[in-house]
């Protein structure tokens, strides 16, 4: 057993697995995990093992660090971290083949946990490679082959198993899980219930995909795309929050009579997030059973989004009316706050008597007062941040404008609220839009003329922002890229990289769309399309039949005569097979020449051909000459002549 090699490979596997937890586990704990793996690497290289006492102390310290750093609130994360920690220690302790086998088994579990957090194509590919390597280590532990050969064998085996796995995914009846793992609480940067002007600017640093939209043929949705996600109706002086009243409405959907016009249908594939909020345009509802629409036309899911889901959306404009309570709710403001902005709002309102006039005046104000759109706004502190923004800095992100505008509408007595969600989307192919974290946006909805109207100061401050994604905003391109974390997106101004990025996005989209969202419903529709109304009894029959057929096939395959790596041996075997057909059985305890002598004796007509064959066998097998193409061809001719000779 090549212990240093096995140790190195297993340690590297643990390092990669830990890498996958980068966004999930606190960095200090990751450092501990990586430290253990590197310790394994180091000790393995010198055939050393840790002293028992030292190992125990290290384990105790790591365990305390685990509880302190990871905490106990998120049980999934806690158990995943604990298992990774324990596996690392098991490797530190492993000496015998049996112990290394146990570590390999643990690696399989650890690898599977990656899927709790990441289900993308890239992660799947990497995890698949790690599976192959781990299988290879397992094989290498007990067989004398080289590690390279073990990897090859492992790859072949997994490749053979793939069709069966694909078949099982497609056809094995999907029954709802009778037990459920609590979904991991993903600490993704996402929208929060509290809109602070700075928090959205922070989202622009992430190029994580949030959701994709598939448009229906002939039902292209028109830009600008305001993907609504949350409504904030309460202003506390600095932040916009979701009031308890609104929360109660959101949790108890009430059917209200609305007049719908211009409805548009599309599908959304949402990536996992830490919240239950979904994304949709306008006033939306969904036909999916686990997605429900709220009182205000937002979409919501019962639990947190732990995996990719796909849902259908019908969006429309809604005509409605507000009752007195709602009017009060949407015009509430703290008593003394931002006096300058309050004065400005009152002044503007006095000049324009109706809502539309005030709406336009506000837009004009933002347009004419040299406000600028920036990803790096000047930090503002103190009580009257809106005043500082409007009269002092005049440079802000969407959150600043939305916050200010909603405030000013309320001062003027018009019902208004801040909506957060995403604006825009990148068109990757004809009917698909990709929406990334940096597209996060906040805007205002103001009520007049029996409708909620979108008021977005961005429209006048940075009009291009409305048509497409933030990444496509020319003026901000440089600061946008500087702001982004490392990723292909950053380099998208290089044509080749951008092309590659789009291809990868496309591949990832297909993966998500085909594999991850293939649920019970999709399966049923597949069965129906394949077997029609007979699917109830035909499906299990086909599944059983195919499985039986594949196992029979595999059984026959494994029993097939194995071709040796030596072509001469194959040719001698062919001669023996021919002799058997003639009724003469060569003995395997005879030497080839003895058998050939027997055949010559029994089939005299074969003599001239076999004499030459004999000569070639002696030259190649015993005189160690090479089995050249000439010799091969000659042997083929001899064998063919034998078959035709009478």
């Amino acid at each position, binding site marked *: 057993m090549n212990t240093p090699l096995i140790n190195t490979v297993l340690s590297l596997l643990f390092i990669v697995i830990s890498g996958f937890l980068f966004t999930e586990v606190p960095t200090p704990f990751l450092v501990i995990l990586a430290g253990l793996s590197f310790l394994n690497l180091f000790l393995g290289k010198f055939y050393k093992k840790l002293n028992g006492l030292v190992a125990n102390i290290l384990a105790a310290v790591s365990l305390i660090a685990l509880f302190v750093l990871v905490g106990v609130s998120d049980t999934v994360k806690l158990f995943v971290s604990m298992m990774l920690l324990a596996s690392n220690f098991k490797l530190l302790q492993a000496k015998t083949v049996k112990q290394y086998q146990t570590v390999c088994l643990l690696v399989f579990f650890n690898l599977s946990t990656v899927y709790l957090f990441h289900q993308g194509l890239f992660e799947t590919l990497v995890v698949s490679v790690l599976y192959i390597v781990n299988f290879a280590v397992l094989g290498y532990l007990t067989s004398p082959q080289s590690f390279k050969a073990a990897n090859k064998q492992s790859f072949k085996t997994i490749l053979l198993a793939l069709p069966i796995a694909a078949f099982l995914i497609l056809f094995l009846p999907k029954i709802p899980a009778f037990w459920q793992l609590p979904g991991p609480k993903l600490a993704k940067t996402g929208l929060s219930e509290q809109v602070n002007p700075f928090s959205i600017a922070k989202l622009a640093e992430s190029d994580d995909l949030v959701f994709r939209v598939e448009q229906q043929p002939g039902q292209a949705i028109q830009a600008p795309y305001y993907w609504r996600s949350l409504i904030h109706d309460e202003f506390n002086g600095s932040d916009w929050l979701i009031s308890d009243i609104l929360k109660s409405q959101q949790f108890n959907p009430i059917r209200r009579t609305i007049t719908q016009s211009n409805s548009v249908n599309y599908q959304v594939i949402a990536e996992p997030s830490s919240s239950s909020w979904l994304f949709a345009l306008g006033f939306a509802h969904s036909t999916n059973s686990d997605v429900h629409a709220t009182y205000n036309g937002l979409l919501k899911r019962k639990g947190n989004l732990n995996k990719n889901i796909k849902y259908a959306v019908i969006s429309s404009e809604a005509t409605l009316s507000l009752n007195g309570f709602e009017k009060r709710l949407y015009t509430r403001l703290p008593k003394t706050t931002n006096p300058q902005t309050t004065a400005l709002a009152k002044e503007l309102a006095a000049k324009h008597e109706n809502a539309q006039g005030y709406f336009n005046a506000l837009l004009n104000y933002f347009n004419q007062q040299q406000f600028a759109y920036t990803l790096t706004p000047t930090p503002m502190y103190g009580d009257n941040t809106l005043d500082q923004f409007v009269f002092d800095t005049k440079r802000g992100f969407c959150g600043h404008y939305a916050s200010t505008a909603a405030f000013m509408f309320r001062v003027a007595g018009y019902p208004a609220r801040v909506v957060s969600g995403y604006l825009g989307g990148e068109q990757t192919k004809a009917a698909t839009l990709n929406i990334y974290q940096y597209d996060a946006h906040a805007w205002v909805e103001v009520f007049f003329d029996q409708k909620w109207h979108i008021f977005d100061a961005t429209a006048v401050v940075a009009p291009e922002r409305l048509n497409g994604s933030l990444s496509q905003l020319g003026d901000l391109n440089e600061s946008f890229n500087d702001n982004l974390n490392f990723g292909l997106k950053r380099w998208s101004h290089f044509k080749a990289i951008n092309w590659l990025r789009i291809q990868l996005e496309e591949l990832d989209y297909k993966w998500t769309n085909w594999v991850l969202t293939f649920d019970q419903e999709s399966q049923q529709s597949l069965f129906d399309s394949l077997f029609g109304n007979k699917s109830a009894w035909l499906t299990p029959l086909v599944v059983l039949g195919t499985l039986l057929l594949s196992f029979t096939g595999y059984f026959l395959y494994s029993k097939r005569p194995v071709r*040796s790596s*030596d072509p*001469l*041996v194959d040719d*001698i*075997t062919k001669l023996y097979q021919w002799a058997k057909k003639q009724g003469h059985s060569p003995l*395997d*305890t*005879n*030497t*080839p*020449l*003895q058998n050939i002598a027997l055949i010559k004796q029994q089939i005299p007509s074969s003599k001239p051909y076999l004499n030459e064959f004999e000569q070639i066998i*002696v030259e190649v*097998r*015993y*005189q*160690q000459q090479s089995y050249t193409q000439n010799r091969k061809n000659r042997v083929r001719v001899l064998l063919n002549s034998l078959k035709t000779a009478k």
Partner: protein
Amino acid sequence: MNSTIQLIIDDLSTVIFGKQQQIKLSLTCLFSEGHLLIEDLPGMGKTTLSHALAAVLGLSYQRIQFTSDLLPSDILGTNIFDAKEHSFSFHQGPVFSQVVLGDEINRAGPKTQSALLEAMEEKQVTVDSVKHALPSPFFVIATQNPVHQSGTYPLPESQLDRFFMRISLGFPDKHAEKNLILGLNNRNYDDLPVRINPEQLTVIQKEINTVTISNAVVDYILELVAYTRQDNHFVNPLSPRASIALARAAKSWAYIEGRDFVMPEDVQAVFPSVTDHRLGLNAGDSGYALKHVPVSL
């Protein structure tokens, strides 16, 4: 076949009738620098064959008749006090010869047997802490009566292993025996022509070293040896020394056959002689293994 070797075989065949195979095996053993054990009932021509072998190879020759009262010093030699010189001088025993025939080796006591076996292994003898080198080449041809006969001390397995080969002559066929009765065989070994001298013997041994043995044949040897080690087929499985001997014997056999490469047939030809005594079987019994181990293609 090598013409000189053919002549040697022909010459020996005038002494021992109808035993060409055994003669070839004996030569194989001597060409491989091994010691030969000939086992058979008394009166089967063991001594005759060994005499003739020594004569044909043109080497100095001594015969020791092993008896139960034979002492190690009777074989190795002894220090004798020289009254004139006032010192001990070493008087060489019969072992100081290029070919030593140990006749009926298993009739001597273990101590005497082991004195000879040490000489075989070390190619030197130690008397009173002084080492004396034996001549080169040095071959021991020992004959042995079957173990079940009275008055014999069986050779221990470890000592049997020192013999490169064991052959058995077996009864002659009717025709050969008739010729023996009629006295048609050559009984005078001294009349046998000397076909090779020690230098030529060294050349042959060097040439045998250059005989090639392919992987296919080595694999076959390994499988045969592995077979003796599994499933308790045999009480004494073959040691690596045995597998090396097997390969060397097969090379010598191939050389005698006039080839410079080994074939599985060569291995099969020498296998029983090289392995039977090591496995603790009667002569020819290891053919069982040959019948069960497939030949690597």
